[in-house]
C-alpha cells in the first residue's frame, strides 16, 4: 500500500493539471465553507456535477479538495463574524470570536489553521492505519453480516443525530422508503412508482442531496430579512507566539483523537466531534473559566477535532460503504456515478483508488495550509461579498447539477421535491441527514437481507452468526438507550416527589 501511495503521490505531483485542479477545488471549498449559510455538504453537493466528466483520479482530487477545504473554511467566518460557516465550526466561534474582539483575529485564524492541519494529518494517519484493518476483517462478512451492519449503521445514526431519536428514526425510514422506489434488484419488479415511468429507474441520491442541503437551505435563508454581517474588520498579525502554538500540541492530539473516534460513528458528524473534543479539553484544563473568553486552546480543540473527523468519516465509508457523515454520503453517490461501490473489496481489487484517496487527502491538507497562510486576509475580505450572486448561482447550480446526473429533466423535479421536503422537515424539527443515510444504506440492507433469507432460508441466521448477533444486540441497545434513560429519569423524578 505504501508503494501505491507514493506512486500515486508522484503521479499527481508530476501532473500540473491535477495539482491545479486540487488547488482550485480546495480554494473553492475554503471560500464556500467560509461563507455563512453554506455548509460543507451543500458545497460538495452543488459542485459534485463538475466531477462527472473527470477521470477517477481527478474527480477524487476535486471532491476531496472541496470536502476538506470547506471543513476548514467554516472557521474563518466563525472567528471573524461569530457565525459558523459550517456546523463543524460552531464551537470554534466560542473562543475564536472573543480572540478577534481582543484584536487577535489573525492569531486565532493561525491557531485554527495549524490545528486544522494537525487534525487533517491525524485523521489521514488514522485512516491509513484503520481502514485496511477494518476492510480485511470485513472481507469475511457475508450477506447476513452486511444486512446487520446496515441496521447497525441506521441505529447509530438514529442515536447520534441531534434531536429526538424517534424523529431521527422517522427521517431514516423516509430515506429507506425513497430508496425502495423503482425496480427491485432481485426480481426486477417495480415498487412505489405510481405509474410514473421515470420512477421505475429509482430515485438518484445526488438530486435528493442537492435538494435537501442546497435548495432547502436557500428556502430557509429567504424566510427572514438578513442584516449585513458586521464582523471584526482588523485581522492583526497572523503570527502567533510560537511557544503558545507549541503548547497546544497536546490539545490538538487529544481533540484529533476524539474527532477520529466520533467521525467513525455513522452520522455523528463534525458537529458532535467538535462538541466532544471541546468539552473534553475544557474538563482537562485547569483554568476552565478562560474557555469561551478567547482561549486559543478552545480554537485548537474545535478545529483539530473538526478536521480529524474527515479521516474518521472516510473510514467506514471506504471499508463498509457506510457514510460517516452527510459529506461522505455525497461522496458515495459520486463514487457510484464513477462505477465504484465502496466496501472492503476496494482494498483488494482497487488499491489504486484507495491510494488516490489517501494522496488526495494528504495533498489537500497541505494545500489548505498553504492557501490559508497566503490568502488568509483575502478570505476575510470575501466575507463581506454580497450574497445575491452566490445564492443565485447556487440555485442555478442546483438545477443544472441535478439535470447533469443523468441528463434528465425529471431529476430537477426530484431535487425540488427533496428541497421542499427538507425545508418542511426542518420546520417541524425532523433532522434531514438521516434521509440521506437511509437512501444510501436502504438498497444494500434490502438486498443483503433478502439474499440471506434466500440462501440460509431462515430468519434465525442473523442470531446464529456471532458477528451479526453481536451487532444486532448493540443496535438494539443503541436504540433502546434513550428509552431506558427516559424511564430512569421518570423513576428518579417519582422518587424525588
Amino acid at each position, binding site marked *: 500500500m505504501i508503494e501505491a501511495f507514493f506512486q500515486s503521490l508522484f503521479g499527481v505531483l508530476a501532473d500540473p493539471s491535477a495539482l491545479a485542479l486540487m488547488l482550485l477545488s480546495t480554494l473553492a471549498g475554503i471560500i464556500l465553507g467560509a461563507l455563512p449559510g453554506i455548509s460543507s455538504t451543500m458545497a460538495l453537493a452543488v459542485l459534485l456535477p463538475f466531477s462527472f466528466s473527470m477521470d477517477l483520479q481527478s474527480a477524487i482530487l476535486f471532491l476531496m479538495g472541496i470536502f476538506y477545504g470547506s471543513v476548514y473554511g467554516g472557521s474563518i467566518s466563525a472567528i471573524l463574524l461569530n457565525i459558523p460557516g459550517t456546523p463543524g465550526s460552531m464551537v470554534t466561534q466560542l473562543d475564536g470570536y472573543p480572540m478577534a474582539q481582543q484584536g487577535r483575529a489573525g492569531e486565532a485564524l493561525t491557531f485554527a489553521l495549524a490545528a486544522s492541519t494537525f487534525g487533517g494529518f491525524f485523521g489521514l494517519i488514522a485512516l491509513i492505519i484503520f481502514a485496511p484493518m477494518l476492510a480485511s476483517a470485513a472481507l469475511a462478512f457475508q450477506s447476513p453480516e452486511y444486512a446487520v451492519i446496515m441496521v447497525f449503521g441506521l441505529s447509530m445514526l438514529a442515536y447520534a443525530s441531534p434531536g429526538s431519536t424517534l424523529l431521527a428514526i422517522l427521517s431514516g425510514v423516509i430515506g429507506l422508503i425513497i430508496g425502495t422506489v423503482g425496480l427491485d434488484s*432481485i426480481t426486477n419488479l417495480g415498487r412505489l412508482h405510481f405509474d410514473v415511468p421515470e420512477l421505475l429507474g429509482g430515485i438518484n441520491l445526488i438530486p435528493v442531496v442537492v435538494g435537501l442541503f442546497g435548495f432547502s437551505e436557500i428556502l430557509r435563508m429567504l424566510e427572514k430579512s438578513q442584516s449585513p454581517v458586521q464582523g471584526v474588520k482588523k485581522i492583526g498579525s497572523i503570527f502567533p507566539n510560537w511557544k503558545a502554538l507549541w503548547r497546544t500540541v497536546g490539545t490538538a492530539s487529544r481533540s484529533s483523537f476524539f474527532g477520529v473516534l466520533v467521525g467513525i460513528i455513522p452520522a455523528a458528524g463534525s458537529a458532535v466531534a467538535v462538541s466532544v473534543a471541546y468539552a473534553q479539553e475544557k474538563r482537562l484544563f485547569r483554568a476552565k473559566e478562560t474557555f469561551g473568553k478567547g482561549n486559543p486552546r478552545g480554537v485548537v480543540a474545535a478545529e483539530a477535532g473538526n478536521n480529524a473527523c474527515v479521516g474518521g468519516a472516510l473510514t467506514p465509508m471506504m471499508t463498509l460503504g457506510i457514510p460517516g457523515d452527510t459529506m461522505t454520503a455525497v461522496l458515495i453517490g459520486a463514487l457510484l456515478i464513477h462505477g465504484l461501490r465502496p466496501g472492503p473489496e476496494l482494498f483488494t481489487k482497487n488499491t489504486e483508488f484507495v491510494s488516490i484517496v489517501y494522496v488526495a487527502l494528504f495533498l489537500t491538507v497541505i494545500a489548505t495550509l498553504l492557501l490559508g497562510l497566503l490568502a488568509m486576509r483575502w478570505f476575510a475580505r470575501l466575507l463581506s461579498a454580497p450574497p445575491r450572486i452566490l445564492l443565485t448561482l447556487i440555485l442555478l447550480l442546483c438545477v443544472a447539477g441535478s439535470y447533469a446526473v443523468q441528463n434528465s429533466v425529471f431529476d430537477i423535479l426530484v431535487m425540488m421535491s427533496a428541497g421542499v421536503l427538507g425545508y418542511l422537515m426542518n420546520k417541524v424539527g425532523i433532522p434531514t441527514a438521516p434521509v440521506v443515510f437511509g437512501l444510501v444504506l436502504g438498497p444494500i440492507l434490502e438486498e443483503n437481507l433478502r439474499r440471506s433469507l434466500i440462501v440460509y432460508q431462515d430468519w434465525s441466521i442473523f442470531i446464529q452468526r456471532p458477528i451479526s448477533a453481536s451487532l444486532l444486540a448493540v443496535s438494539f441497545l443503541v436504540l433502546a438507550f434513550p428509552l431506558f434513560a427516559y424511564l430512569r429519569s421518570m423513576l428518579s423524578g417519582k422518587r424525588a416527589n
Partner: protein
Amino acid sequence: MPNWFVSAKNDLALGDQAQGERPKQSSVWLGVILVGAGGGGLMNVRADPWLAEGARGTDPGPGFLPEILLWVVVIFGVALVFSVLLKAWRCGGFVPDGEFRFQRLWLPVMLFASLVSYFFAIRSFGFLVPSIVFSLLWVPIIHWRSGRPFLRRHALQFPLESLIIALALYGLFRFVIGVPLP
C-alpha cells in the same frame, strides 16, 4: 403517559414538545400527513399483484421492506396525532406556530413557484433563456433580502450580473463539462 417524541437525550424535538408546554398545531398536521403518505404508499404496494407474486420460497419479496417501512410511518403518524392531541387536552390547547406564518413563508413559496415555472420553461425553451429570466428576478430579491440598500447603479448592474451568471453556468456545463443542457 410519556411523550415518546421527546427522547431522554434532549428535548429539541418538535420544539414545543417539552413536558408541561402546550404543543403546536403543526405537530398534528405532521401526523396526519404521515398517515396519509404512509397509507397512500401502502395502498400502492398492496394494489400491485406482481409484488405479492415476487415473494417466492423464503424470499419475502420486493414488497416486504416497503410495506414494513410504510407501516412504521403510519403507526408513527397515528401515535404522533394521539400524543399531541392528548397533550393539548391536558395543557389547555395549542400554542401558535411561528414557523408557518405568512411573513416567513411568502418568499420561500414564491421561490418554489418560480422554480416550478423555471422547470417548465426549461422543457419548452431550453436552459439558457429561462435561466437568464430566473436570475433577473432573483438577483434583486436576494439583494433586498440580504438587507442591503438599492443604489442607482444597480439598475444596470443587476441585469448584467444575471446575464453573466446564467451565461457562465451554461458555458461551463455545456462546453467545459460537456453536459448537453437542453
